[in-house]
């Protein structure tokens, strides 16, 4: 039952999204290209806004440590060509040590 629910919940929206993507990639309409250029900018806006939205509760819970943690991660990822998997794993370890008081 749970597997069916997950399958339907993932497959139906995925099929719709893939159909839209297929229509877009096979279209040569300049209007659709212009439409997607705007949508692309909107997508980046949503992405950046979602990062802030997701970060807010963590910063509220741990204002000082959380902010320092976020800024350090940002600087490291922006400056050095480090593996992001490593960054996430190290962050988990650091969080277990320094963010546990928020739990």
């Amino acid at each position, binding site marked *: 039952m*749970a597997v069916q629910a*997950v399958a339907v*919940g*993932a*497959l139906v*929206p*995925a099929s*719709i*999204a*893939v159909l839209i*993507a*297929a229509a*877009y990639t096979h279209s040569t309409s300049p*209007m659709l*290209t*212009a*439409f*997607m*250029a*705007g*949508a*692309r*900018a*909107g*997508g*980046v*806006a*949503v*992405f*950046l*806004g*979602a*990062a*802030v*939205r*997701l*970060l807010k509760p*963590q910063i509220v*819970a741990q204002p000082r440590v959380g902010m320092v*943690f*976020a*800024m350090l991660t*940002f600087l490291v*990822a*922006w400056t050095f060509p480090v*593996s*992001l*998997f490593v*960054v*996430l794993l190290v*962050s*988990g*370890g650091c*969080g*277990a*040590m*320094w963010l*546990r*008081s928020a*739990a």
Partner: protein
Amino acid sequence: MAPIRGMTSLALYWLFLRAVLLSFSGFATVPVLREALVLDHALLTDARLNDAIAISQASPGPLGMYVVLVGYFVAGVSGALAGVLALMTPALLAIPIARLVLRGQSAAIQGACGGIVIASCALMMVTGLRLVPQAAPALPYLVIIVIGAAMVALTSIKPVWVIVVAAGIGLAVY
């Protein structure tokens, strides 16, 4: 499985799964997938990644649905299936993981989750800023990004409206 320009669909599934398992939000996977598919393997462009995000936001389904579209853009239908399976796998593990995190009363586990969430947000911002030049070829698009990001961050507006309005502005600019 058949190789997909240097990456098998099984490898694609494994990449998606690792990214999804290490994230606590649908979009938190974007930095990891961009690093692997755009920067390391050159299987995807920033433009296509932006397309996947935009289309997924204008479609029904969870935030992470863009992974399916990334799979589709990289490898067609088999890539999309790899994305769907990668999205489904953690959902099936969600209840035991939630029990471990919430009922285990382990401050260390909750702290680790908090650390990963904060790091994910920082990585999302880095990736988002790196996507801006591709998504904003002219000033109106930059204005869309700034205002849209502020609205999503500061209000409870549904992301789909930002996409729809931005697409409308794109048409108007055309």
